[in-house]
């Protein structure tokens, strides 16, 4: 029954959309520079071009306040079916979660995600219940919502200023949720010609700065601006999580068989 530990970790794997760098922080089609409102900028980020499928290795490093690291290694496949996005993730390390796999169906409408988990020790695929989007993903500093594509309709957006960050010209927009959520507001630095948020500040319910997301590395792959590294730092608790993608391959023409329970059990 030690596998319950794995179960707890893995059930938290829902919605890691951003890991292929094509979700909230994804690239967008270059547009002509002009005066923008906060809402227009938010929609530009949201309506970015994204690949129909892809795969990559992923390294997630959890660093505590003393600098001690815990590292998870995964490989993931993703395919966009327009109404549903399917994703399967295989755990490569550490050893106690190796060969565990997770399948997620994420829908464009308001339906909850469907999720399945394969634990090699239990030798069966289990359907798992979706947790709250405020939950932290695999003990990291990312909540599920942080990793999701958030509709601009849920927030009120305000353009605060324009400034240069890390050599990139950015719009700074403040997004305040229309309904109460896990954050009181977000402030994002969006690169003008790429529509990638280079930095996001997350404020807690007391409007105190809680977390800061930075993007140390991004690049264009197959014409898509892709986030390579994301660094989420909890400034209140002094720990952080770094997600880094490698061996990224987009538009591979992945077959449907990759996103089945048969594939989950077979493994990589």
């Amino acid at each position, binding site marked *: *029954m*030690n*596998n*319950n*530990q794995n*179960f*707890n*970790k893995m*059930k*938290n794997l829902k919605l890691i959309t951003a890991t292929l760098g094509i979700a909230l922080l994804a690239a967008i089609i270059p547009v002509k520079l002009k005066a923008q409102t906060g809402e227009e900028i938010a929609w530009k980020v949201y309506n970015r071009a994204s690949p129909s499928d892809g795969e990559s290795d992923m390294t997630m490093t*959890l660093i*505590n306040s003393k600098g001690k690291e*815990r*590292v998870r290694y995964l490989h993931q496949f993703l395919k966009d079916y327009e109404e*549903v996005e399917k994703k399967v993730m295989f755990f490569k*390390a*550490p*050893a*106690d979660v*190796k060969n565990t796999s997770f399948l997620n*169906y994420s829908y464009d409408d308001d339906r*909850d995600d*469907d999720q399945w988990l394969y634990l090699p*020790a*239990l*030798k*069966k*695929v*289990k*359907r*798992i*219940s*979706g*947790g*709250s989007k*405020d*939950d*932290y993903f*695999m*003990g*990291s500093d990312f909540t599920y919502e942080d990793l999701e594509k958030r509709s601009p309709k849920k927030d009120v957006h305000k353009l605060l200023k324009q400034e240069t960050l890390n050599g990139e010209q950015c719009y700074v927009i403040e997004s305040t949720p229309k309904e109460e959520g896990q954050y009181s507001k977000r402030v994002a630095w969006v690169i003008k010609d790429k529509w990638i948020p280079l930095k996001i500040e997350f404020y807690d319910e007391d409007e105190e700065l809680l977390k800061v997301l930075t993007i140390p590395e991004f690049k264009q792959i197959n014409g898509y601006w892709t986030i390579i590294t994301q660094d989420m730092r909890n400034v209140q608790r002094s*720990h952080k999580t770094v997600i880094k993608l490698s061996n990224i391959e987009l538009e591979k023409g992945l077959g*449907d*068989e990759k996103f*089945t*329970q*048969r594939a989950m059990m*077979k*493994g990589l």
Partner: protein
Amino acid sequence: MKIKAIYILGAALLWSQFGFAQSEDEPKLEINGFVRNYTGVLLAPPNEYSIIQNTLNLEFRLQSDKFALYANPYYFQYPNKDDEFKLREAYVDIYLDKFDFRVGKQQIVWGQADGVFITDIVSPLDLTDFLLRDFNEIRIGVNAAKINYYPNYDHSFELVLIPSFTPSIFPSDIWEPTIDFPAPPTFDTSNIEVPFSLESSEVFLKYSLSKSWADIQLMGAYTWDDAPTMHVTQIAPPDPNAPSLLIKPEYHRLALAGMSFNTDIQGFVLRGEGAYYFDKYYQTLDPTAKDALVQKNFINYVVGLDKSIGDWKLSAQFIQRVIIDYDESIKDEEVDNLATLLISKSMFRETVRLEWFSYYGFNNNDALMRIRGFYYPMDAVSLELGANIFTGSKGMFGQYDDNDMMYVRIKYNF
């Protein structure tokens, strides 16, 4: 034996440091496993050890796109009883476009329930330590041929053929159940062997439908009852005032048909499984019954609900078994009700987890409560401190009321 295990561990650790994958098409060899110490103490005086077990578990996997070889030897070292060195699994996989084949010793897991076995009856159980082993260690590998057919992505069929019957291993030592005989018993095990022949083989068939809205399985089996039936006759005693019983354990055929399902409803996972079993032997007090036995059909089913709320995980199951066409002379009760409850909470970025898992038997008001805490000081290392508490005076759990225990398990995965 110990030196052999140390050599195997050393070799495995060494090999596991190397990557064997030359390219995507070439087979790659992986070696994984764990070492573990498991020490338990009974809470009742004189606080004897309930278990002291050191484990070396190895997994060898050679895999390519089209085939795989897998072996899982394990070694249980006990300071106070005989060591155990066995192969839990050893099989060959062949993957084709629409078929998967697996031949060899293998654990096969069916069904949707946790901790109870209703349609999950392909692999027999090792109940040496009652239900306290990890689930992957409680199932016994069977020598089988398994064929999976996938006509498309949503539907699949699984056929399992087992040519030689493997019975379950029953509780022993402090877990041996107490049985009250009305007269001194004499055991005759001359009929207990199931001959190895085509007629003795077992067959299992399952159909699976996998949709986003639900997973559904239908299954049927022609198998053996993993528990032997006790054929009881009264023998003529030398002293007519001291009658004696002759007990002949014997395995019998069992057929069943069942189904299982799971679905997500508003963030809750509803799951269940049930099976109709044909012609199981039950002990009876009817004096006219041959060997004090009667055959009855019965139904066994479970309904469960799972929910995750933040770092909390909740899961509850209700299990019921009903004997059909019951008569009062049968020793077992007509209806047996059981429930399980799991409450689990992760903390400190998943480095600590607390868990409560319990079985409760309604018929005898007995229970097993498993209360555990896990600490993960670093990746692949776990420290588990737990207690197994039995309550009640009779029934599946109450009979072990004197076996309350605390234990610690230290495990390193590699």
